[in-house]
């Protein structure tokens, strides 16, 4: 029964079917928007546009494909099959490398240039030195004969290839199960305490909700720009404040990982402005609105935003330029243009820089100030090294398998010479020329 199950799990047909099923599942994720990567509004729109698909999507969790139970089951069976195959491949490679003594080559008198068997009147020392020069290693030495192999490490190619996939998937599963991730958007001077809500939080099946071990405060950040526009880098100064009040200043930069108290912190490449507007209506009632917009990364291009606030019965459309004078991207003097709409009809428009005021429809508006924000990702992860080592081992295995093909020479002693058998398990035709050359050298013939 156990043998039967093993046979089913490792049969090429099962592996092929599993590969096909996994790939088809991945391909499905291209056509069906996934919850983790699609904004909720966009997801709803897609689902409304495809009502006939909805029952199937819900039944099989196709919008959360990579965490669906059936996908996990598929992956589990694949892992099981892979584990058994890796073990079998290991045993096979070990046997080839260490356990095969030199066997008797079958008797033959073939002497055609590509024949696998031949005889050579050569001493043991000459045989060894000739084969050594040709890149062959002696793997077995018995009274009856020897076994030489060129590129014996090629035996381990398939083992490593399978082991690499196994480690990668295991690492990925561990990561998915235990990781904790939180996204923050902090304004300069703002402090995020461990109890404050995240902009976005996610944690693995076996992990509790993510809480920072200390409060974090953004002191300031500095975006750097290319001469022609576009963000070159963003550098932020953060302060971690532990529960006992100890402060630890840290600096994050785009493209480099900051590690602190077991956390990994990434500087996001996005940043923007909060425009603080003070609105006063005709009755004298005032209220503050904050327009949160990403910063433009070019002097001539604007960023845009649409806003609906409970405080006013209008729709606001806004655009902002990085510099009102359009001379310096880092000027910290942005220009805000606000448009007021009622029932899709434009009522009024107003342009403001810091401290300026004007009328916008029924409101007197003043731009009180502009504060800057930028984003950070915090992570607690286990399993990443496993994934990288897994892919590295897989690549090494594939390299060994396709680039270093073992060529075996079994040498049987006989009457002052040897009877030899050459074997190449893969791509044999590509090495026939090399075989002929070795054979001619052993037989004392000159190379062609």
């Amino acid at each position, binding site marked *: 029964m156990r043998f039967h199950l093993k046979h089913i799990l490792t049969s*090429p047909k099962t*592996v*092929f079917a599993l*590969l*096909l099923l*996994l*790939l088809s599942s*991945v*391909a499905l*994720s*291209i056509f069906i928007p*996934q919850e*983790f*990567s699609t904004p909720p509004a966009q997801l709803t729109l897609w689902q409304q546009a495809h009502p006939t698909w909805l029952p199937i999507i819900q039944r099989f969790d196709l919008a959360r494909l*990579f965490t669906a139970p059936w996908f996990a089951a598929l992956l589990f069976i694949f892992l099981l099959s892979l584990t058994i195959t890796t073990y079998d491949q290991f045993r096979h490679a070990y046997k080839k490398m260490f356990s095969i003594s030199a066997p008797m080559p079958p008797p033959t008198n073939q002497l055609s240039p590509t024949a696998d068997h031949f005889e050579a009147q050569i001493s043991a020392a000459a045989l060894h030195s000739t084969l050594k020069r040709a890149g062959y290693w002696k793997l077995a030495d018995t009274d009856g004969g020897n076994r030489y192999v060129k590129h014996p490490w090629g035996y381990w190619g398939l083992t490593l290839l399978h082991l690499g996939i196994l480690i990668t998937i295991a690492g*990925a599963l561990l990561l998915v199960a235990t990781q904790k991730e939180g996204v923050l958007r902090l304004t300069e001077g703002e402090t995020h305490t461990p109890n404050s809500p995240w902009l976005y939080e996610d944690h693995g099946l076996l992990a509790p909700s993510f809480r920072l071990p200390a409060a974090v405060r953004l002191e300031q950040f500095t975006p750097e720009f*290319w001469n*022609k*526009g*576009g*963000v*070159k*880098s*963003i550098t932020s100064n953060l302060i971690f404040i532990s529960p006992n009040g100890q402060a630890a200043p840290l600096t994050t930069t*785009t*493209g*480099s*990982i900051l590690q602190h108290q077991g956390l*990994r912190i*990434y500087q996001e*490449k996005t940043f923007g402005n909060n425009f603080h507007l003070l609105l006063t209506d005709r009755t004298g009632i005032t209220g503050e609105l904050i327009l949160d917009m990403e910063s433009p990364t070019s002097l001539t291009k604007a960023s845009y935003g649409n806003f609906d606030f409970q405080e006013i019965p209008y729709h606001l459309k806004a655009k902002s330029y990085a510099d009102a004078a359009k001379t310096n991207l880092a000027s910290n003097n942005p220009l805000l243009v606000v448009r007021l709409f009622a029932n899709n009809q434009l009522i009024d428009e107003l342009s403001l820089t810091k401290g300026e005021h004007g009328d916008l429809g029924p409101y007197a508006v003043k731009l009180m100030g502009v504060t800057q924000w930028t984003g950070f*990702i915090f*992570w607690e992860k286990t399993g*990443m090294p496993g*994934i*990288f080592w897994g*892919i*590295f081992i*897989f*690549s090494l295995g*594939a*390299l060994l*398998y*396709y*680039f270093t093909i073992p060529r075996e020479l079994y040498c049987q002693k006989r009457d002052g010479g040897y009877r030899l058998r050459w074997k190449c398990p893969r*791509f044999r*035709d*590509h090495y026939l020329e090399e075989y002929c050359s070795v054979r001619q050298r052993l037989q004392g013939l000159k190379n062609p």
Partner: protein
Amino acid sequence: MNNDFTILTGMHWSAVLLYVVATVGNTMGIIFQKEQTERLAYRLVITGLIIHSSALLFWWYVVGHGPYLARYEILSAMAWGTMLTFLLFSKPFPAIRPASLLVFPAVVLMIGLGIFFNPAVKALPPTFRGIWLVLHVIFYMISLATIIIALALSLGYIQRKRTSYSWLARLPEPAAMDLLAYRFTGFGFVFWSIAMLTGAVWAYQSWGRFWGWDPIETWSLITWGGFAIYLHLRRFFGLKEEKAAALLIICFLLSMASLFFVPLFDSSIHSEYFR
């Protein structure tokens, strides 16, 4: 800057001219069995490659980053990588030389398309930097080259099997071409895997995650899986000859989609790539 564009375009056109002449000479050399013409074609290709390399280095110096952002520079770099990889592999595997019938025109086509897109300086986004990105691009480049060689050998196989043009007899035996196509697909698979690995390290440094099911990542994984299926079928199910060639053509189309078409249609963290 206009002066730089003029120099760059001039260098590219010079390389293209040499490649075109070499393509014609090489085709004639193979069809009419003129070894001297074929040898001359290879000399022209090497000269073209030197000029092409200088053009890429010059552009690298001008824009301050490697050729991995704008369509123009990506296509030019891919063409360069394909030609260099082909020349390097044709030393230990001289039997692949007839694959030049497809490789040389493919190189010309890629540079031609690149010039058609017009060179423009694109600023490097903050996440597009580091040695892992450079390695990521280089390994995809080598992978593409080996896949094109495998495709050329598979198409050669189909031609030899289905048509009876006398010059086709000068190509390697069908069985040899089939085996070489298998081997080069294996090479392509290896390099594609390493490209994904280096990409994962780059993504980890840039975004804090090794994999994000981004459209380009997903398509790259599907392509990798396509090649894995091809190799699995050949290894365990005895797939060979025309059926293997047909499957390889599908895998090649998948790789084209991943490298050149997905970035045009889908938003992605690779969004600055090939735009």
